[in-house]
């Protein structure tokens, strides 16, 4: 696939939103007092599993007290 033919204008929002999700999840991970499981594990999940990683963190990892 040619570098020029990649529709960057269309793909850029996808990348930005993915990055935003990861950043928001990481900020939350830093601020929240307790998580279900270790914080390191969640940091890895958030960063490595694209899209779903942050979502799993927000739903499962965050302990809503």
């Amino acid at each position: 696939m040619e570098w020029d033919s990649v529709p960057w204008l269309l793909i850029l929002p996808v990348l930005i939103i993915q990055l935003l999700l990861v950043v928001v999840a990481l900020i939350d991970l830093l601020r929240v007092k307790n998580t279900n499981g270790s914080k390191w594990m969640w940091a890895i999940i958030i960063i490595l599993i694209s899209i779903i990683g942050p979502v799993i963190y927000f739903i499962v990892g965050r302990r809503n007290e």
Partner: protein
Amino acid sequence: MNNFSILFQKEWRENVRNFKILWIPLVFILFGISEPLMYHYLPQILNAVGNMPSDMVFPLPDYTPEQIIMSTIGQYQFIGMLIVAFGFAGIIARERRNGTATMLYVRPIAYTSYVFSKLAIMCILIIGSACIGLLANVYYTYILYGAVDAVAFIGFLGTYSIWLLFAISVVICASSAFPTGIASVISIFLLVVLQLVDGLLGAYWTISPWKLPMYAGQILTGSFDKTPYLWSLTVTIMMVVLLIVGAIYIAKRNVAKAKI
């Protein structure tokens, strides 16, 4: 409804500070824009990553814009429903369990306001996010596949929102009646499992809330049966009313179960 706005402010602050107000719309937008992209560029992506012989040609089916939008709805119907069920099953039950509810229940609050504050915040988070996501989706689809009829799209969005309202009511009622764990299992069953059952066996009936997303798609393509659609809509709205009234009644009855 005298203390609705006070209770709603509390819900709003909670969901701003736990970032739900950010991540839920982001997830819906992400699926909304990546679905048309994936379909459109899938052959090139496969070519780029798969070391395919360059002369190999993928037959590229001609998707209509409507098919792309309905495929996005398919994503929302699974991942969106998981977020609704798991992300909100504790919306009432958790307050009861951790004892924070006691601080509210000892005051002269109307349980109608209490349940409506939960309903309002969920509508904003879920229906709002889905609508923003579908608008982003229709924009990307327009660029890559072409336009859809505007009036039909509004009808589609409205119908799908009613389905989401039904899903939200199910979760609120379950959370009002049961502890968080049971409420999430019940919600998953009613929103995901029954959806599959309706999909597999649904040829035998035409009126059901679980068929609303399908009817929404038919509205989009402009080919739909008015009678079963309107009946399904009516039945769904009636069930929403029943679930919300039930949630209010049960929330009041379950006050005694709040941890003191």
